[in-house]
């Protein structure tokens, strides 16, 4: 285990020395972040998509303290309670990400799925699994608008009555941050 800094406003940060389970049940949103290999592609000014995403996710955690359960996914999904996302690597296992979010969604939390790619599993399987999030799942596509993943994510969001936005991190990082902020506000209502 690497000793990492704890991001301000992350679940671990607001827990200090207490029981982290209590902080988790008081969170409002599960943010599922794609950390597959494609996120290393250069997006803007010599910076990769994942670096831009990292900065924004950290800022949002700082603004919405203790409200976000951060989950990273690539070959598998795992929570990042300290608020740091791992280096991108491997595939895009959206099924595992959705499974990870399920118990939190059952507690009434909203789910935001952020990705720049298509799932490693069949699209039909992912859409089917997502049906348990009806009215609770929103998506943000962070790759180029013309990518095949953009269309898939739109269909996924539509199938669960959620919203979908396309915010190319290379072109519109600000838009991504604004969109995320809107979804956080929506979850707080």
């Amino acid at each position, binding site marked *: *285990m*690497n*000793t990492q800094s704890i991001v301000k406003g992350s679940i671990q940060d607001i827990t200090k*020395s*207490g*029981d*982290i*389970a*209590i902080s*988790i*049940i008081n969170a409002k949103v599960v943010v599922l972040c*794609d950390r*597959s*290999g*494609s996120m*290393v592609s250069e997006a803007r000014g010599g910076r*990769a998509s*994942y670096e831009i995403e990292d900065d924004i996710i950290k800022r949002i955690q700082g603004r919405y303290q203790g409200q976000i359960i951060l989950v*990273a996914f*690539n*070959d*598998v*999904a*795992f*929570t990042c309670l300290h608020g740091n996302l*791992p*280096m*991108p*690597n*491997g*595939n*895009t*296992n959206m099924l*595992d990400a959705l499974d990870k979010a399920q*118990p939190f969604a*059952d*507690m009434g939390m909203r789910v935001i799925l952020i990705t*720049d*790619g*298509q799932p*490693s*599993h069949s699209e039909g399987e992912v859409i089917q699994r997502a049906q348990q999030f009806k009215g609770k799942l929103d998506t943000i596509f962070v790759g180029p608008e013309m990518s095949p993943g953009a269309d898939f994510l739109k269909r996924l969001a539509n199938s669960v009555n959620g919203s979908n936005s396309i915010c190319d991190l290379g072109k519109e990082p600000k838009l991504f941050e604004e969109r995320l902020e809107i979804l956080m506000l929506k979850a707080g209502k």
Partner: protein
Amino acid sequence: MEVEIKPSPPSAYDILGIVSNATQDDIHTAYRIMVRRYHPDVNSDPDAKDLFISVTEAYKLLSDIAQRRKYDVVRKILQQEKQDEKERDQYMNNPFVSGSGGFAFSGSAIFYGNVPFGYGAPAMNQSASSSMP
């Protein structure tokens, strides 16, 4: 790489001195006993006030059935993640494991030295394709 080992903080169950499948009656009884022991009016120990606050918070949580259910689910998730991390560490320490690329096993992820590679890395999940994301 440093390993940071921190003792787990006590759970709400630990604070009230009850087991995790305690009934609501057990919770009320434990709370009454703890209040008599740690209420600042009856206990002059400087730590008593903090203990009393912890006991009250634990009681508030566990006596609310819906909140307790959520709490129990989260505790299970955290235990599972701890177990996954342990398996991951054991796997990493296996001298027969080569150190390149990324892979997955039993619900855990492996990252090697923060190297951003791993396209087409072998995933043990049979249903996942190994194509580019």
